[in-house]
């Protein structure tokens, strides 16, 4: 078969070159006309694995405390990279990884949920920067993505799309996973291809409950078997992006129990132990130094003894969760091996996308979204709330959405400073990479220290597959990829280091790398602090980025960034600062702090829609797409038909007991339960049962004032008659859940009111004709504008920590 022109995609279909007479007589078939595009000869399968929210010093393969036997196996048979870099935040790294371009240049300076009106922060990939999965697909690969996506903006995660922002639009034939930044591992609101499919049926199987990491591996293996059942040769590209180790840290007790007592020594000692193992393994240079603890993290010795078991348990669960991820990736690799294809499968396995996450704040949290909703809770409060939901032994189970302490994350980033969101330091920007390809890699177990970055992965895969970067896709001229191939370093330790210059920027924390020098420019804000005082210094016209403190490191001599040379080399500081500004302009990084624009009055136009109608069969409306009921008055009205003998069940419910609301009928009575992030739970019930026949019920929340977290009065109505009331002192200001959906007529997944937990999903036994949200029942224009601003602040806050 002739080789097609791959410079323009899609590749033009083969034009019939046979002969077609009036009859078969003399006619000549052209069998290429019924073929399909095939990749270049020898193009390998590719498995790209991305672990979430993990640090350089987590996996045992790189000296960490977590057993990762599969990662170690792959490393021993492949090569390890100890200077691989990421973008210090989830979506930016993923966008860079899948497009081969700097994250801001493809609209992902911040997370996928959050779009602003600046080019670097739209969360929309420009059509001249098409992701490489599409290139592989159009060149004859089977492509699939499993697990976390986090590249679709809020508001576009439903059945009306647009789907060019979904995995299928990025070039994946098949997708199974979740669209957001994090998900429960027990009851995620799943997506498959172009549909939100909600909670898996197995969630309701108490003997064999659903567990997302297991299901991801199952689905991947099933997909591999299916494509091989159809085509024995077609290479595949599988992108396996775990929800682990992002919060909520969910894992069964058998995995967490393996680490019982393993972290009683605390985070300071853990860092020292990890550092020693890293030296012994040779994954860091012998002269590397362990960086010191910033005052933002408490010393373990200062933690009250009575709270140490609580903190230790947080890390035990994280470790078990992470080891489970290793186990499930191992299952996928074993399946490829069983197919007899591991020899010619290029496995790239990145352990972490932005360093370990410090978003649990110092205390850690029983519910990861308490931080995003700005609920200040002391460690004692966190402990008590975990007791409320089963105690620390239940940390990791379905009753909580836990996140560990920022100090554990810092320890997970050993030997570096800081972590996720801090683009100025290696704790947030350097993660382990292991590459496995038995057919080509002969120097097994080798270490590579080439400066590499997520944007290099795409060019490397295309290089290895022999697929050129197309000049045009769908008729649109493509920007070149910003990354460079490091394919030759797989087999040649002396291969040249091509990636010599790189900017980093995440929420104002920025750095400039060039030829071994690294200029760090960190803002003073602690990543998990979003108070007005913390934001205020970045007010437009007040903040001068060039006045931020700078640190200068020379990485060839200082692997971990332990020695600040800024004072000795002011000319290098100046040079790199100027270079950063040039790069920032070139790649749409500007304006700095664009993700904070909402705090400074730059909010999108006021939405016009104030009424949302849902018919009775609507389910799995993702949490970022529910009607905007936060911080002001609203009503929920339902038109029902109650059969003879009465009805029970959920009329409408959003999310679960850790944040959400449910309007339901129990014991014949209209009931409303509202969980303020599991910290406060409010319940109101009608004083009389619902009548039979057609009836209209309403829940009316009259806010004290349109302001964040406003309290207010709830009144329940039956056919305009008040039948119950109650007060809610606090409401959720930002977001009920990072993942759980809203359902009409049932409460899918974890339930809001634990009183009907044993009847879940507690489907409504009458008929729901329509549920209407009126989110703007009272306010003046000015109030509406203020509320909109507050909501957008909240959205911004969520975006800073998703």
């Amino acid at each position: 078969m002739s080789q097609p022109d791959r410079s323009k995609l899609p590749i033009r279909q083969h034009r019939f070159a046979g002969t077609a007479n009036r009859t078969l007589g003399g006619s000549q078939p052209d069998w290429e006309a019924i073929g399909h595009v095939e990749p270049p000869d020898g193009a390998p399968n590719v498995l790209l694995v991305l672990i979430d929210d993990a640090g350089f010093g987590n996996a045992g393969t790189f000296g960490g405390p977590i057993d990762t036997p599969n990662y170690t196996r792959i490393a021993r048979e492949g090569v390890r990279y100890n200077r691989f870099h990421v973008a210090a935040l989830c979506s930016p790294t993923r966008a860079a990884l899948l497009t081969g371009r700097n994250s801001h240049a493809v609209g992902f300076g911040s997370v996928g949920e959050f779009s602003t009106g600046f080019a670097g922060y739209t969360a929309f990939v420009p059509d001249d920067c098409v992701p490489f999965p599409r290139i592989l697909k159009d060149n004859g690969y089977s492509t699939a993505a499993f697990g976390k996506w986090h590249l679709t903006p809020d508001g576009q995660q439903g059945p009306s799309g647009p789907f060019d922002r979904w995995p299928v639009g990025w070039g994946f034939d098949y997708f199974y996973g979740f669209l957001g930044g994090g998900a429960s591992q027990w009851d995620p609101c799943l997506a498959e291809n172009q549909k939100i499919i909600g909670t898996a049926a197995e969630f309701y199987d108490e003997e064999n409950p659903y567990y997302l990491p297991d299901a991801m591996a199952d689905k991947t293996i099933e997909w591999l078997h299916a494509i091989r059942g159809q085509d024995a040769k077609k290479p595949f590209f599988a992108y396996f992006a775990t929800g682990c180790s992002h919060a909520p840290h969910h894992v069964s007790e058998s995995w967490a129990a393996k680490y019982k007592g393993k972290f009683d020594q605390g985070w300071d000692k853990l860092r020292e132990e990890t550092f020693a193992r890293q030296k012994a393994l040779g994954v860091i240079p012998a002269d590397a130094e362990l960086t010191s603890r910033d005052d933002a993290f408490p010393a373990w010795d200062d933690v009250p003894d009575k709270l140490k078991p609580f903190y230790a348990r947080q890390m035990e669960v994280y470790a078990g969760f992470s080891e489970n991820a290793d186990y499930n990736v191992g299952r996928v690799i074993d399946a490829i091996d069983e197919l007899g294809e591991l020899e010619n499968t290029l496995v790239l396995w990145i352990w972490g996308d932005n360093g370990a996450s410090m978003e649990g704040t110092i205390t850690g949290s029983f519910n990861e979204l308490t931080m995003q909703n700005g609920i200040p809770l002391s460690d004692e409060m966190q402990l008590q709330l975990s007791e409320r939901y089963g105690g620390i032994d239940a940390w990791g189970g379905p009753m909580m959405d836990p996140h560990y302490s920022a100090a554990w994350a810092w320890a997970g980033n050993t030997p570096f400073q800081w972590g996720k969101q801090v683009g100025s330091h290696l704790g947030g920007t350097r993660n382990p990479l292991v590459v496995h390809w038995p057919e080509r890699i002969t120097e097994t177990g080798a270490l590579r220290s080439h400066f590499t970055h997520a944007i290099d992965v795409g060019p490397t895969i295309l290089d290895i597959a022999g697929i050129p970067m197309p000049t045009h896709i769908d008729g649109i001229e493509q920007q070149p990829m910003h990354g460079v191939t490091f394919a030759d370093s797989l087999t040649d330790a002396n291969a040249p280091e091509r990636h010599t210059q790189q900017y980093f920027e995440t929420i104002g924390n920025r750095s400039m790398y060039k030829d071994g020098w690294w200029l760090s420019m960190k803002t003073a804000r602690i990543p998990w602090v979003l108070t007005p005082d913390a934001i205020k210094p970045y007010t437009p016209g007040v903040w001068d980025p060039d006045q931020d403190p700078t640190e200068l490191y020379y990485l060839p001599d200082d692997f971990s960034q332990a020695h600040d040379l800024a004072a000795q080399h002011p000319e290098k500081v100046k040079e790199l600062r100027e270079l950063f500004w040039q790069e920032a302009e070139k790649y749409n990084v500007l304006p700095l702090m664009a993700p904070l624009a909402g705090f400074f009055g730059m909010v999108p136009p006021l939405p016009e829609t104030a009424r949302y109608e849902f018919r009775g069969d609507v389910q799995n409306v993702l949490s970022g797409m529910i009607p905007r009921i936060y911080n002001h008055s609203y009503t929920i009205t339902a038109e029902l038909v109650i059969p003879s003998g009465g009805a029970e069940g959920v009329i409408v419910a959003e999310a679960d007991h850790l944040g959400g609301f449910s309007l339901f009928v129990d014991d014949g009575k209209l009931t409303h339960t509202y969980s303020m992030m599991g910290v406060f739970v409010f319940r109101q019930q009608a004083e009389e049962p619902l009548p039979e026949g057609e009836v209209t019920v309403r829940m009316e929340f009259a806010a004290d004032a349109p302001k964040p977290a406003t309290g207010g009065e709830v009144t329940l109505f039956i056919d305009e008659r008040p039948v119950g009331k109650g007060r809610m002192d606090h409401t959720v200001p930002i977001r009920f859940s990072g993942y759980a959906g809203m359902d009409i007529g049932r409460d899918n997944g974890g339930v809001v009111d634990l009183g009907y937990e044993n009847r879940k999903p507690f489907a409504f036994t009458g008929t729901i004709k329509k549920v209407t949200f009126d989110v703007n029942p009272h306010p003046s224009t000015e109030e509406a504008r203020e509320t909109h601003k507050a909501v957008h602040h909240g959205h911004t806050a969520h975006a800073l920590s998703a």
Partner: protein
Amino acid sequence: MKLHDTIDVLIGGYLSKDAAEEDYNAVLECGGHLQGAVIVGKDLEGNLSVEQTDHMVREGAEGLGAIGFAVGLIAPPAVLATTAVGAAIGAGAGELLHHEVKEKLGQQAGETIPIGGAGLIVSYSHSEAEKVEPAVTRAVKKAIGEAEGRHVQALKGAIADAQQKMAASDA
């Protein structure tokens, strides 16, 4: 028992009943002489529970249950993520109730205690404060009231004082 005494009342608010029980047991075992201790909790399904140790009742006097009071709870965090993340941890102040029986206490407490929360009320002679107060280590919100007088009068006064302090710290 003396007719005149200085009575202290400690009110503690908790986010879990486990924590309240831990303090409750610690108070009972602290070695100090208590005039009464009440723990009131509400589980996640909204069911109320009341436990009461009332020395004064045993002694034939009018005790906590008879005076009756529900807890000042809890610590509504100031939830102002982006405009003012305050630290206002504070309860809706403890509201004294004046009922005569435990059931009534429970009923009233049920209206004031949040789902999943709990409260502890302990009364003791002021002379026992050094033994009692250190035993309460887990309250996320705590106030101690004090009053002098005939014991029932003093008890009422101490409760009122504790509630006032609880309310003041919410502000």
